[in-house]
């Protein structure tokens, strides 16, 4: 610029004006192409130069693109040429190859005597303006060269500006896209959290993916456990089969551009123009694979697109897992609710109040565990004024056991008014249970009828833990074990044998289920019949209800209050 001012006086007003107007025009322009075209046309027009060109360096190379070329030449715009000298070899803007003994590239055949003007800013070389000699083969005067130099400087600044402007525009656009991507993810995470329907989540994922990445074909294969399923897809010619899905799952995690080797292995990917695969991880485990085609505008998928794909995929998978957990929780709550209902029903099956029995002090209790169990007991008066008490235990736990126990209870109550012996009744119950329950379901059952006028107990034991009888004057226990087979195991072949015992004053009879004897201590020890017998013997002076309470507390204490099974206990004392 200093040169320009120093020699400014020599310029005609016209030239100054041109310079001023041109510089304003160029500086204000944001189009590189416009600047270059004007630079070339103005210099050629003013200097009467018939051939000229603009060469722009390919960044980082010694090659140049012929961006503009005017005048007869075998080269055309877009061609590349080499410049045999370095961009920073010369201080001056103008380079005269002939004078410097350099061989310039032949831009115009047979016309090599032109000048190169370095298009550069203080720290950046852009390229060259080439001007041939004038039409009359005259060289440019020093004054004219100065003018072109000035224009070259102004143009270089203008080009740099316009380049920066488009770079900024590009960066801004990328930023806008990024912001938009984040907004999309943010909105979708809110949307997904409101969705409880898998299909809705899958379809939202699909549309968001297609829209955001501008793709037409994709699939999402989900593998929650070891089961593969196609959760969402679009634009495929057909869905992948099980083999293809597992092959796709076997490929390396993230493939930004699929190669021939992949296509050869899984032709499905090629047929459907799938270009990239992204793996989705949950807790370090690969749970899904998304495959996408190239963008519909033929652009390659960028790393940022790939990141978006993974984020969106993770969101969708998380939401789907969340809905599954929700479904499981609802199901669990429903089951718990059902079990509570079952427990209430079961509780109603036990007798509300124990009838007063002449010559007998009787107390009974059932302590249910967390689950519904299969224990059963009953004490009822028969039409003939005597009493029946029963105890039973259905194999297994839960609803099936409870149902069977309810069944037994109703059979017993149906048969109660019927004038048949215990033995006959047991045979019928056994047949009904055998016919109507699966073969792995049995009931251990003990029941007895107490004829109070005779103090006679008529009993049948069908496979139940033998009730313990401790005579008033004895320290030895008798076991009531006569009867027959466990209920439900096989049809009644031989009749169930009834046995009579008398219950006298002070005699103690204890009926129990295996919840008592098979209670374990923390050390894994069994409560066992021995301990039960000991508890009875040591507390034989107590009334029935106190004795029962004492035994229950002893068992609870033994297990450290960790009862795993139902406990049922009937304590009878002759009175």
């Amino acid at each position, binding site marked *: 610029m200093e040169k320009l001012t120093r020699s400014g006086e020599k310029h005609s007003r016209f030239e100054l004006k041109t310079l001023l107007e041109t510089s304003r025009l160029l500086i204000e322009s944001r189009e590189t192409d416009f600047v270059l075209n004007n630079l070339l046309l103005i210099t050629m027009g003013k200097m009467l130069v018939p051939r000229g060109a603009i060469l722009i360096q390919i960044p980082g190379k010694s090659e140049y693109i012929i961006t503009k070329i005017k005048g007869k030449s075998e080269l055309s715009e877009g061609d590349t040429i080499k410049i045999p000298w370095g961009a920073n070899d010369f201080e001056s803007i103008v380079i005269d190859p002939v004078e410097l003994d350099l061989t310039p590239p032949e831009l115009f055949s047979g016309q090599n005597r032109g000048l190169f003007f370095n298009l550069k800013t203080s720290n950046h070389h852009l390229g060259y303006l080439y001007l041939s000699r004038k039409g009359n083969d005259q060289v440019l005067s020093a004054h004219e060269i100065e003018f072109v130099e000035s224009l070259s400087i102004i143009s270089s600044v203008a080009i740099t500006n316009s380049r920066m402007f488009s770079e900024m525009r590009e960066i801004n*656009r990328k930023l*806008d*896209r990024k912001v*938009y991507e984040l907004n*999309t993810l943010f*909105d*979708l995470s809110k*949307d997904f959290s*409101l969705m*409880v*329907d898998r299909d809705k989540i899958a*379809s*939202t994922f*699909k*549309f*968001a*993916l*297609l*829209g*955001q990445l*501008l*793709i*037409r074909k994709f699939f999402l294969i989900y593998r929650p456990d070891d089961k593969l399923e196609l959760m969402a897809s*679009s*634009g495929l010619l057909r869905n992948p089969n099980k083999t293809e899905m597992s092959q796709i799952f076997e490929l390396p995690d993230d493939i930004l551009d699929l190669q021939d080797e992949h296509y050869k292995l899984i032709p499905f990917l090629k047929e459907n123009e799938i270009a990239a695969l992204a793996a989705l991880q949950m807790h370090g485990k690969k749970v899904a694979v998304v495959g996408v085609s190239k*963008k*519909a*505008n033929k*652009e390659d998928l960028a790393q940022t697109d790939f990141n978006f794909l993974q984020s969106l995929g993770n969101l969708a998978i998380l939401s789907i897992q969340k809905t599954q957990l929700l479904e499981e929780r609802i199901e669990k709550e429903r089951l718990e609710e059902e079990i509570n209902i079952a427990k209430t029903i079961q509780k109603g099956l036990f007798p509300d109040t124990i009838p007063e029995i002449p010559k007998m002090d009787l107390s009974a209790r059932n302590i249910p565990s967390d689950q519904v169990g299969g224990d059963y007991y009953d004490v009822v008066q028969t039409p003939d004024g005597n009493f029946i008490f029963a105890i039973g235990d259905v194999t297994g736990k839960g609803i099936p056991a409870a149902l069977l126990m309810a069944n037994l209870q109703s059979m017993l109550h149906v048969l109660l008014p019927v004038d048949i012996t215990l033995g006959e009744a047991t045979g019928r119950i056994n047949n009904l249970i055998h016919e109507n329950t699966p073969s792995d379901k049995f009931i251990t059952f003990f029941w007895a009828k107490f004829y109070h006028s005779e103090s006679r107990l008529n009993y049948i034991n069908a496979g139940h833990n033998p009730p313990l009888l401790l005579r008033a004057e004895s320290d030895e226990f008798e076991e009531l074990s006569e009867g027959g087979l466990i209920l439900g195991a096989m049809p009644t072949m031989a009749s169930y044998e009834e046995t009579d015992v008398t219950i006298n004053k002070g005699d103690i009879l204890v009926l129990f289920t295996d919840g008592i004897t098979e209670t374990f201590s923390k050390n894994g020890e069994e409560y066992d019949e021995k301990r039960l017998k000991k508890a009875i013997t040591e507390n034989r002076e107590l009334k029935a209800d106190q004795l029962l309470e004492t035994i229950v507390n002893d068992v609870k204490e033994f297990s450290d209050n960790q009862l795993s099974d139902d406990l049922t206990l009937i304590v009878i004392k002759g009175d």
Partner: protein
Amino acid sequence: MLTVMKNFHINHRHSDEIEVLEISGELDAHTASKLEDSLKTLIDKNRHNIIVNCSDLEYIASAGLGVFMAYIEDVRGLGGDIKLTNMNERVYNVFDLLGFPTLYDIFDEEEEAVKQFQNSDQ
């Protein structure tokens, strides 16, 4: 089931060979299926010259754009097209940002899209 219905409406007009969907409100993940249903219905009825007039469209999310991506190939494969018109600037910016203008005909006015359909039919 919990669904949040946002404000989104489709008004369907048709003349001769051209179907016009006037969409208004917010087109996002929750409302995308509505537009999908409309497009599917048209395709099923072999009505492939579709103009989507967006003059009252206030907001569009990626999921909304995705619906257009999902059906454009079907429609073009059948010799038709989906042309978009009358977008406000904010909505156009979203389309532009994601590169839609290179793939779809987007016009300022519905008539221009109509003309284009008429010209290509002749």
